[in-house]
């Protein structure tokens, strides 16, 4: 990696039961992924309010990824089904407003999918890095 290569800021929301555990498993198995991914633990992907995602972009995140249990496997039985609808509509709207769709993502990662977690993060970072900085949604005043 080059030193001055653009490193996007990635916020990853992970549900406590599957994806956060999947990320832990990636750690257990020493499966590397970029350090610019920072995980926020939520009980369920359905806890993630679109406002959090907008907030992240406003504060200078370059990409936001939301990870939850696979549909049908939600710890709370149906939380991720709501997530799926909310994010389908939110991401579609962001794209409609001209925000590159590659900056947002939902991925289902189970507690057993450490490898998938790591691969997803690598891929997502690369994808966001290719787009460069998020200038369209960030609020400069929120940056220091």
């Amino acid at each position, binding site marked *: 990696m080059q030193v001055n290569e653009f490193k996007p*800021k990635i*916020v990853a929301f992970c549900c406590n039961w599957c994806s*956060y*555990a999947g*990320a*832990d498993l*990636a*750690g*257990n198995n*020493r*499966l*590397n*992924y970029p*350090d610019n991914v*920072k*995980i*926020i*633990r*939520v*009980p*369920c992907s*359905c*806890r*993630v*309010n*679109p*406002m*959090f995602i907008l*907030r*992240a972009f406003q*504060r*200078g*995140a370059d990409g936001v990824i939301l990870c939850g249990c696979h549909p*049908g*496997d939600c*710890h*709370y*039985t*149906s*939380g991720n089904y*709501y997530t799926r609808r*909310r994010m389908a509509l939110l991401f579609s709207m962001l794209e409609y407003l001209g925000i590159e769709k590659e900056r947002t993502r939902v991925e289902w990662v189970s507690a057993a999918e450490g490898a998938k977690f*790591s691969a997803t993060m690598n891929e997502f970072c690369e994808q966001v890095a290719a787009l460069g900085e998020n200038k369209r949604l960030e609020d400069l005043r*929120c940056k*220091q």
Partner: protein
Amino acid sequence: MQRIGVFVCWCGSNIAATVDVKAVAEALKSEPGVVFSTDYQYMCSQAGQDLIKEAIKEHKLTGLVICSCSPRMHENTFRKVAADSGINPYMVEIANIREQCSWVHKDKAIGTEKAIILARAAVAKVHLNTPLTPGESEVTKRALVIGGGIAGIQTALDIADAGYKVDIVETKPTIGGKMAQLDKTFPTLDCAACILTPKMVEVAQNENVRIFSYSEVTEVGGFVGNFTVKIKKKARYVKEDVCTGCGLCTEKCPMKKVPNDFNLGMNNKGAIYIPFAQAVPKVATIDPNYCNMLKNGKCGLCAKVCTAGAIDYTQKDEIIEEKYGAIVAATGYNPISLDKFDEFAYNQSKDVITSLEFERLTNAAGPTNGVLLRPSDLKHPKTIVFVQCVGSRCSADASKGKEYCSKICCMYTAKHAMLTRDKYPDTDVYVFYIDVRTPGKNFDEFYRRAVEEYGVHYIKGMVGKVIPEGDKLIVQGSDLLDNKQLKIEADLVVLAAAIEPDKSARNLATMLTASMDTNDFFTEAHPKLRPVESPTAGIFLSGTCQGPKDIPETVSQAGAAASKVIGLLAKDKLKGNPCVAHSDELMCNGCSSCERVCPYKAITYVDKEFRMPDRTTKVRRVAFVNEAVCQGCGACTVACPSGAMDLKGFKSKQIMAEVDAICK
């Protein structure tokens, strides 16, 4: 303003090798609100815990940030440390700098930088943490067991023995389940009825147990310790408390052509029937689909012959409502339908049967009184072929069958083969197998006896096709060890059909908000450490509804489920998870969005009077979260348009503070 202490763990070299722990502790010192920051080799050790306790005292800390391994490892440890030192345990946040930092990054500078950011995010969250106290709720001291097979019976008996009330709900007119249909049981070959029926009687006579036979659960509300359940008692058209079980009506009933489902349709019964001699409760039941009296008002013979006056053609379904502290699912299994496997000719020949049908054919109380006669012509079969793994171990994309191993078939097939050879030594018995799986006490020895002492021919390979030709069944299959294709002329073919959860289980799981896997087996809370609990609090699992298992395993699981139930019922009050949703009634619109997304029906609405700024009052509909039911997923918080609904421990402001800290 919080007084926050930051504790950076080395985890030996696990963290310290890739994260400069001292630099992290140092960097965090300058964060607002942080009054103490240090590092230590093993924060979770007794010495580490003491260090934290000391710091809490000395620096009058109000909140803790522990930079260590995943919260899934030690969050509870550190919460307990906080509680022991007089801080609310929910004032602790963990920055996961091991699994999600030191273990996935190699460069120390990078790891250190990330660890600092993660710690800052945790500090930002702790600033907004508030003390949380788990709610308490009463426990109803009565358990419900759904399913009256051996699993349900054993669970109920064990709960009753501990002195608690327990109800069994069974859809069939009698308890007993599949085990009542079996002949002998492996590997001891004692007769199923001899060991089961005393238990059936015992459960019926236990004063702590009530049996609702011919009944179904129709509605489940409430939560752990406080379930409200509606049970439909189907009309059996016989007064249960009056019928003496003499059986006269069943003999006199002129309608004789009702397929006897207890014998899997291999013989007939009357429209009024008692499933089998040792049925519990031993009362008659009328099948309304066949009874002439119920269908067109003609007959009434059973009422005439009944000396007890138990027949009541006007009986209606009855709904009973009861409260329970715990619920056990014990809904059992069924063999799969073999419609998609007709290469084995199950639908084309009467002499191709399932193993469960074979049990009835060899059972003394079965359609042939225990004499092994084949269904088509009631002749003794001289050559019998058993086919294993019919519908088990199929790949998911094979569009038929089950992916899992049904687990019991190898053993019962060995049993069938052995018993046949024992009773009818002139019969040739072949078993086609893919693998013989016999883990279990005395299991493999049992299988070996079938081969070595009883001369059962085990053939490694699978049957490709069964060809009914004349009065023979030509079984074409491969013998892989001999590299041959065999054609065996058989008189009877027995298919070890895969087993699947009872169809009622899915509907029940929805009512219980208990999760299921793709095969409709109930999911356990943890596959190893909590195998008899469902992830939904207060719901327990017993027997094959959780996965294929044999009788000894079922009985031990039934006992385990019972002990979990007893542990729950023994408590007077339950502490809940304090990270639950909470609605700010001043902001609540009463719009029902939250109620609609709640998977636990934890939200109800109340009309509440509010004082308006102009001193008038207004009654508004507002949401009320039952904290004992809420599991804290947070679906409602996003559905709520006004932001009245928030999740304790994961408040919007807390999460946004983390976002801000990360994006800084």
